[in-house]
């Protein structure tokens, strides 16, 4: 199996030299295999947002290297970073981040237009992913006209339409009710298992995390423990996560 994400000993320090400095990440290393579903758990202030920002090229590490799909993303300039995000990464955010002045179809098509995909190829691709996520009947509506669960599916469709190397989820179930949350997680699991989509999900919710195949616990800027599902049922894995969280 090849590695889709390689993180090598990254640190992130805020504040200028000589002034008061704060180290958010203190040497983090891990890999994500292609087709893996990895969860990252940590309390607020543990450094998980900083880590996700660096992994998604929104921020740069102070030291260390990050390889995504074999490419070192720490040496890229601003335009290269923007293009890289547009091509290799898909995002699902907690608050959906859909553009309410575009229809759902236009929202999903956005990453393709940004990559200069031919107009005639765009609609078939949008239709395909929308069908896969069960939102093909609401494509011509505006985000304000659909439910929260549907919005997150539209966001997922937008994140996947350009077939990125990896899908990042930043608390994707945070704004959903439990039914919609479960539906979304089942969908993500399906995408991971059937469509071989690599997923990296940041969350502090043990229920969401139990859908992952491996979980990294981050604490005070370092990776603490790592636990694997390894054939356990989701319920058993959930109990294990709860136990691990209770230990700290």
């Amino acid at each position, binding site marked *: 199996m090849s590695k889709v994400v390689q993180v090598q000993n990254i640190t992130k320090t805020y504040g200028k030299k000589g002034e008061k400095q704060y180290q958010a990440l203190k040497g983090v290393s891990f890999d994500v295999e292609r087709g893996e579903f990895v969860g990252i758990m940590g309390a607020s202030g543990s450094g998980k947002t900083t880590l996700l920002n660096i992994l998604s090229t929104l921020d740069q590490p102070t030291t260390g290297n990050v390889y995504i799909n074999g490419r070192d993303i720490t040496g890229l300039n601003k335009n290269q970073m*923007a293009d890289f*995000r547009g091509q290799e990464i898909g995002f699902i955010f907690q608050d959906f981040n859909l553009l309410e*002045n575009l229809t759902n179809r236009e929202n999903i098509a*956005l*990453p*393709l*237009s940004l990559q200069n995909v031919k107009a005639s190829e765009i609609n078939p691709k949008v239709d395909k992913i929308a069908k896969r996520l069960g939102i093909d009947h609401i494509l011509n509506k505006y985000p304000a006209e659909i439910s929260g669960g549907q919005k997150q599916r539209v966001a997922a469709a937008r994140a996947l339409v350009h077939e990125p190397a990896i899908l990042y989820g930043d608390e994707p179930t945070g704004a959903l009710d439990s039914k919609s949350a479960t539906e979304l997680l089942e969908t993500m699991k399906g995408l991971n298992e059937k469509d071989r989509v690599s997923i990296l999900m940041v969350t502090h919710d043990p229920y969401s995390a139990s859908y992952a195949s491996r979980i990294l616990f981050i604490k005070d800027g370092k990776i603490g423990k790592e636990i694997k599902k390894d054939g356990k049922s989701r319920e058993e894995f959930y109990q294990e996560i709860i136990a691990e969280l209770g230990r700290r």
Partner: protein
Amino acid sequence: MLWKLSLTGIKSRFKDYLVLFSGLTFASAIFYMFMTLATNPAFLKGSLSIAFQITQIVFGFGIALLSIITFVYIVYANSFLLSMRQKDYGMYMMLGARTSKIGRLIFTETLVVGLLATLLGTVLGVALTQGVSSILISQLGLQIHKFVGFYLPALLWTIAFFAILFFLAAFWNRHKLVKSNIINLLHEDQKPVKLHRNKLWKFIEALLGIALLGTGYWAMMHAVKLGTKTIPIAFFTIVFGSYFTFDSFFTAIIDLLRKNLAFKYRKLHSFTLGQLKFRLSDYTRILSTVSLLFALALGAITVGLNFNNMTEQAMESTYYDVVLYNHNKKVDNQLKKVSVKSTTNLEYKIIMEGKGKERQRILYIPESQIENNKIMYQHYSRKNDVSHYDTRRITLNDFKNKKSNVAAEGEYQLVSLTPYKDAQVKVVPQVQYNRIKATVNKIELLRVNDFRSNFNNIEKLQKLSVNQMISSPNATKDGINVNLSNSKSAQYRLVSSMTSGFEFMGFFLGLAFLAMLASTLMFKVLSGANSDKPRYQMLWKIGTRKSLLKSSIAKEIGILFALPAALGVVDVLFGLQLFKSILGMNTYDKLWIPFTIFGVLYVIYYFLTVVLYQHIVLQKED
């Protein structure tokens, strides 16, 4: 404590406040300038004694318009202030601050910001009035004297007007904050806009809009026929026509573009179109207002500059620049200071003939003079509502039929060249002329190279020559009837003193309107910037290059600026018909000058808006 928090809030958004504050300052400065011009008796008496009444009407109209624009402007500037602050205040309320206290806070903040800006603005206004008026006066060669920037009544009016406006704005802000839910204040930007409208109504609206605009334009083109009805008809139809056009026509174009997939799915086009679609429904009123103001401002500048053409016309009405009657030392010395292009001589004899009541002064001119000396004059006619002069030569043929119009005009032109305006002209054969016992008189008709640039010397030369005639001891007895007012110099001075005033006013009015309308549009656009911020951040996160975001912003704002400008230009092109028929001047001449001046300033406002918007919306990358 809350006061302290509120001040910190201002500090953290200092740059945005600076924009708002300078906008308000500028508005009050312009208002003051205009009030000074409109009410300052020194300005009116100094230059516009003849057209005093017209001027007052025009200025009164100008003040009314400017007040309305200022009002609209304050409304949008105020909504920009509120959009910056509502999140902060919502947060204070969430933290438990009492509504009444927050109400007092926003009330005071609005009033203090407004009044400080007004005070600073009036000070700036005094300096600006002084500076701008002296620049305009010297640049345009205007004949305005004794103009002082400070005028107390205007100052008081300005302060009173703005104080009332800000008081109202403060009440409005307080009302808005106190009445709305905390949740809405915190999440104002996430409220969706409904966009479902009847398509048939849109279609009718589009037709109605174009029909109304057409009617308005037609009315302005037929102003002579419609008389006083023209302005109300044009005003009504164009106001509503613009509104309907913006509400339907432009949204229809955007919808059409959205249907074109190849266009929509390129780069950020779909996003820009989406923004515009939502914007247009929200912007209909302001865009139609701006287009009208744009037309008024551009029209004012164009017509103002055209008064300059009127002075040209005044110069065209007379062929010879200077008429020299007799020479003396003073005249000869002055003549050296003028660059003469050509000199034409005219010889004549003058005697009294007839008896009793019939006794009259007769001016004899030999046929040879007419034949050989090529005496020219400017013939006046009116074609297609435009006054027109063409140069003609007096020939012997003109006098063949003594009762014809041509003969009458020829005689009139000849006698008005001489100092005997009351005499009757007789053109006679040389033999007959020689028999008349009277002294031979000569006049010299000069054409010069530098009439406008050397005007003062030319005027002095004409004055000296006229004075010499009048001051001769037998002037009255000899029937010498000449004064400076008949000369080209005097006409030029008269017309230019009148037109300078109009030109100055048109220019000033135009610039004031332009500044107001462009800043109104600017604040309307900027007050939406805060709610657009998350959209641009999201686009950036999913991999949009910053340069692409910038160009999308530039395009979007560019269209919002271009639409009212386009309609405004069309309004002006038709509106000028009005002046063409009323004032009889060809207002389409040299149109590019006012259009260029106006365009450059408008484009500067556009770029300013784009830069400020980008500054608010886009995150800094380090």
